[in-house]
């Protein structure tokens, strides 16, 4: 196959594939984390992974990824248990418990890390790469871990789609249906923890939570359907991963992980501003348009009521009258109504200004609007 120069590079290929797998996985699972209002959980889990990595290294003296990530996973699970215990057994709220677990585990991790670095040759251990990620250290066989976790996550989400959906939306109702809510929640949380763990090597402990939250948050802006949100989040995740990997391979010396997270955050910002339905810009334009529509409807019904008061469907309303009431918006409304064919201009006497007459379509539309304002009780 013919790759453009840098794409032929073995490391670059590995990083691109790895980053897009990570994006797919964290995008999909992030949707559930965000909707379950557990965004902070990803943060706590990723910070908690650090001591696990350090202890895994100390115990086995190996830098093999599977050992380090197993350590990370165990530490993540312990942190999750601590969070549950703190919220159940004390008066702490979830966010406080998350904060405590996060700082406690992270502090232990940093202490262990400095200990390892003082003991060994720092570069040989290379564990500090886990703080901000080091995509270049990724090996081809590491892709298998990423691929397996991603495939498992997607398989689970597809198989238990309706169960995950109802558990996320209304856990009490799900439980009344007889669904094993706790088990499903444990599966979801474990999968989120796994997604965090497999991202550590590339994105690092500090920024990994953003990989979980950002694609889902961006996707949420564009849609009102969970299916669409999930697919969009996966696309956004993969796009962030690939973009970050490409940027860092083009510009030597820029770290891949932060670039991935920056891209994802850029997508969030873009979505918040420009998304249809929920985006700020769209909402503002929509509100403006609705306001204009409202005035147009007002003018139409006003003409209708004037005609009614004069018992003359062909009553001519003088433009100045409308403008005196609605200002310049009245002019715009009349030309819009003219364009729609609801009114037509007419001159009363040569020396007078423009007058407007309702058309048959205009009368019908005005009656429809008035009827919708006073709906018949159902």
């Amino acid at each position, binding site marked *: 196959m013919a790759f453009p120069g840098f794409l032929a590079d073995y490391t670059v290929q590995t990083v691109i594939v790895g980053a897009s797998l990570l994006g797919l996985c964290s995008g999909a699972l992030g949707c559930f984390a965000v909707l379950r209002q557990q965004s902070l959980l990803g943060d706590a889990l990723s910070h908690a992974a650090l001591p696990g990595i350090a202890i895994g290294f100390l115990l086995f003296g190996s830098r093999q990824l599977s050992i380090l990530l197993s350590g990370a996973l165990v530490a993540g699970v312990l942190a999750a248990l601590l969070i549950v215990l703190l919220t159940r057994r004390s008066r702490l709220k979830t966010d406080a418990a998350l904060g405590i677990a996060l700082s406690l585990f992270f502090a232990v991790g940093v202490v262990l890390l400095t200990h390892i670095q003082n003991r060994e040759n720092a570069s040989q251990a290379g564990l500090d790469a886990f703080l901000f990620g080091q995509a270049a250290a990724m090996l081809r066989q590491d892709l298998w871990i990423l691929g397996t976790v991603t495939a498992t996550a997607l398989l689970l989400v597809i198989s238990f789609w*309706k169960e995950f959906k109802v558990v996320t*939306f209304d856990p*009490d109702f799900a439980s*009344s249906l007889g669904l094993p809510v706790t088990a499903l929640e444990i599966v979801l949380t474990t999968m989120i923890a796994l997604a965090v763990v497999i991202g550590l090597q590339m994105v690092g402990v500090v920024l990994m939570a953003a990989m979980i939250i950002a694609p889902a948050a961006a996707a*949420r802006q564009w849609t009102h359907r969970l299916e669409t949100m999930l697919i969009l989040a996966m696309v956004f995740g993969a796009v962030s991963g690939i973009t970050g990997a490409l940027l860092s391979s083009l510009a030597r010396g820029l770290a891949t992980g932060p670039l991935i997270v920056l891209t994802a955050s850029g997508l969030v910002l873009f979505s918040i501003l420009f998304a249809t339905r929920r985006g700020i810009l769209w909402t503002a334009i929509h509100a403006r348009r609705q306001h204009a529509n409202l005035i147009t409807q007002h003018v139409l019904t006003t003409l209708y009521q004037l005609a009614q008061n004069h018992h003359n469907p062909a009553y001519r309303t003088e433009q100045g009258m409308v403008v005196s009431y609605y200002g310049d918006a009245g002019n715009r409304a009349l030309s819009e109504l003219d364009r729609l064919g609801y009114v037509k201009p007419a001159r009363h006497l040569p020396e007078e200004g423009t007058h407007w007459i309702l058309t048959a379509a205009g009368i019908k539309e005005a009656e429809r609007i008035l009827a919708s304002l006073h709906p018949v009780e159902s």
Partner: protein
Amino acid sequence: MSTIDPQAARSENVTNIQVDARHEPDLAIHVEDLTVSYGTKPVLWDIDMDIPPGVLAAIVGPNGAGKSTLIKTVLGLIRPAAGHVYIHGKPYRDQRRLVGYVPQRTSVDWDFPTTALDVVSMGLYGRLGWFRRPGKREKQRALAALEQVNMSSFADRQISQLSGGQQQRVFLARALVQAADIYFMDEPMAGVDATTERAIIEILRKLRDQNKTVVVVHHDLQTVTSYFDWIVILNVRIIAQGSVADVYTAEHLRAAYGGQIALLQSNSFTKDTQG
């Protein structure tokens, strides 16, 4: 209205503790010696509650009386510190298919990305079982339920764009597709306008007329006598239970609502109950 006398049933339990109450299949709901606490604070204490089948029953009591907790415990959502719950003589987990549930509307995040129709189909998930997706038949049943609550034109509306009363009706439709025998509804008429409230009570009456049992947490004491035929007055303990005609008295309400009753008494409903 009913032949069951809960007072008698209770004294029987007291005199003979060995009585095996599992065989109360004639009762739609039979709760005995139920105590529930959050941490160390009991919020339900020694509840004995019997509800016969085919009634429209209200659970009333002040805020924090434990009404939602009672329903959730009956549905197995909260594990009681002590006591048992029987639905038609069997534990809840054997009778799930017989039970429909309308949670308090505020218990979910209505900004969830889904449509009214999709929420209603959730009522069919229990029947569908694992790995099966709702198909055409499920969609039709969900649409029919929306039609029943007069919401079919909102089927594809995102749920955050529904008014409170419309959201309430979506929840009701979700329970209706469950085609249950016993319904538990937590404040289904909270925050709805008079028209919607009338529509909802009509649906509940229809269910009762099909010999289903409907248990409703209700806050409006004015409408108890006109809406319901069975009542449970609750404040941590059971203050009174029975047919509305028998036990819905100012005295029992005073016992449940304490000081608040002075305010309530000025209203006309207490006279209604005496008349």
